[in-house]
């Protein structure tokens, strides 16, 4: 009896091992593999970029390349890279997260100057998603504070996207006639009082708004908003662009220590540069990010409403300062966000 069990167990274990190892070790005959560690809303973008780049790289150099993707919250992804996730390139939500990787010694200082336009080959901004027909009549930032409006956004302490939301609201209030720090603070405080669910990631808050039916307005990246409306129901949702918003510049860079160790610098560099080519920019626009290249931008102009865009540098004096003032433990967000008080 025992021996029968043993034999059976042995066979089962062997079978699983074979099933598990067999196919993974096959099908890996590339000249190089790149790992792109990115944040949540770029899955669809990089799926398209990867297949297009692989074909173009093969044509140009004759080399076959494979690209692996990892997605998650921007801060979490940066932390994984710092802790040893061997990313050849990082394409994150904010420069602050790349700075964190740089501080750990993996990226050389001055990375933001290595590629054109602050190393951000595409941009986005923060817009509103409302229920079909805009029942609460939300047109611009002040409408968010109308009585009975529930706002969905993620927690800016854990979500890069939510930080852009927060700063967009702050920047709007600051730039109003007679606006100052105190007024901005009061505005943002009021705004967060109307948030019933504070998800830890941007995608979580979209799910809460769309799938769970909670809230009247969702603050989201423009690309996420268009994607969500297309994927989850044009008949249920619509997008509203505020008068003023923030210019979100998600940066990309090569992780120097990793590419030097793995000998992948050329491929990694080519990969990022591809994002700036007309083909790359075309894919960027098709995935609802705002392209940098004027010709592509003109072609897709109807897709992106005209919004006055503030930059982090002019409104907040750069990411490091914004992060420290607003989102560090004990910072402005912690002070103004006191639920139940």
């Amino acid at each position, binding site marked *: 009896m*025992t021996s029968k069990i043993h034999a059976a167990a042995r066979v089962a274990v062997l079978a*699983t*091992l074979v099933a598990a190892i067999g196919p993974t070790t096959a099908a890996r005959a590339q000249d190089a593999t790149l790992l792109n560690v990115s944040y949540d809303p770029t899955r669809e973008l990089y799926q398209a970029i990867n297949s297009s780049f692989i074909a173009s790289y093969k044509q140009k150099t004759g080399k076959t390349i494979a690209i692996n993707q*990892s997605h998650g919250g921007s801060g979490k992804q940066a932390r994984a890279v710092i802790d*040893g*996730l061997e990313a050849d390139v990082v394409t994150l939500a904010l420069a602050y997260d790349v700075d964190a990787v740089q501080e750990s010694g993996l990226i050389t200082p001055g990375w933001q100057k290595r590629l054109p336009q602050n190393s951000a080959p595409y941009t986005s901004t923060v817009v509103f998603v409302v229920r079909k027909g805009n029942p609460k009549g939300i047109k611009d930032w002040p409408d968010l504070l109308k009585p009975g409006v529930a706002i969905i956004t993620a927690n800016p302490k854990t979500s890069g996207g939510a930080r852009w939301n927060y700063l967009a609201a702050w920047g709007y209030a600051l730039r109003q006639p007679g606006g100052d720090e105190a007024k901005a603070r009061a505005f943002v405080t009021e705004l967060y009082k109307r948030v019933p669910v504070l998800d830890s*990631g941007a995608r979580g808050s979209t799910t809460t708004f769309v*799938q769970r039916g909670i809230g009247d307005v969702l603050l989201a990246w423009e690309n996420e908003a268009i994607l*969500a409306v297309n994927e989850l129901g044009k008949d249920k949702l619509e997008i509203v662009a505020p008068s003023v918003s923030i210019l979100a510049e998600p940066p990309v860079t090569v992780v120097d220590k990793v590419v030097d160790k793995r000998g992948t610098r050329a491929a990694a560099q080519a990969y990022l540069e591809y994002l700036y080519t007309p083909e790359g920019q075309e894919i960027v626009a098709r995935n609802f990010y705002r392209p940098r290249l004027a010709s592509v931008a003109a072609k897709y102009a109807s897709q992106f409403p005209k919004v006055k865009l503030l930059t982090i540098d002019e409104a907040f004096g750069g990411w490091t300062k914004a992060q420290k003032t607003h989102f560090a433990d004990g910072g402005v967000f912690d002070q103004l966000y006191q639920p139940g008080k």
Partner: protein
Amino acid sequence: MRRALTEPPLVRGALLAVALVFLAIFLVMPLVAVFAQALEKGFGAYLTALREPDAWAAIRLTLLTAAIAVPMNLAFGLAASWAIAKFEFPGKGTLLTLIDLPFAVSPVISGMIFVLLFGRQGLLGPFLGAHDVKVIFAVPGIVLATVFVTFPFVARELIPVMQALGNEEEEAARVLGAGGWQIFFRVTLPNVKWGVLYGVILCNARAMGEFGAVSVVSGHIRGLTNTIPLHVEILYNEYNFQAAFAVASLLAFLALVTLLAKSVVEWRSGRAARPEAPVREAA
């Protein structure tokens, strides 16, 4: 005889109703919800979601992880239960509590400690980096985190069974001249085989389903370091709810198979031989 001791029919009915309604709300409905949403778009869409290459890669990795973690913890469980059940030694109580510890540690902490140990900035990070050994964000890290969270299952299942059996048979075999391994394979193992199987089944279920700890050490590389539960989360975050629930239904199905296997083991081993409480199953 029993009749005098049971409650009046009305109370009986009420108790039964309360128990069944409670179980229906808290246990059955979540299960139904998983399958209902998995099949929301029909059986074809369900199969498509399962045939996707990334889903397959996740399934393979999960099977591989369980195939390594379960035998490791089985070996540990057998050794620990032999030492603890057959011998008296000081510090046994503390040892038992330490064995239980992974049950009560938050899965998040279980993942984090391996990052602190093997991460690039961790204690062994520089050494591993210099020798180009990848532990976390690769398969070894996922296996280690899984071994950690499923650590006590077999041991805690076996210890009471062995304790209940006592040492007489082994001692008799010893007197008759049997060697240690002989005693173990000929006498002890046949006696505890159902307990072993029971522990292995539970250990396996947890190994395949672990989310929190694995999530911290995985790196989430599509097709390489995503297990089934992580793949569910990814699909969920891609607004692909039907596919998320389809893959989740695999795990729910695994849970049902686990329950069935447990019932069979209990039935084969006879209710009496069943360790008096699965108190030790998890925590």
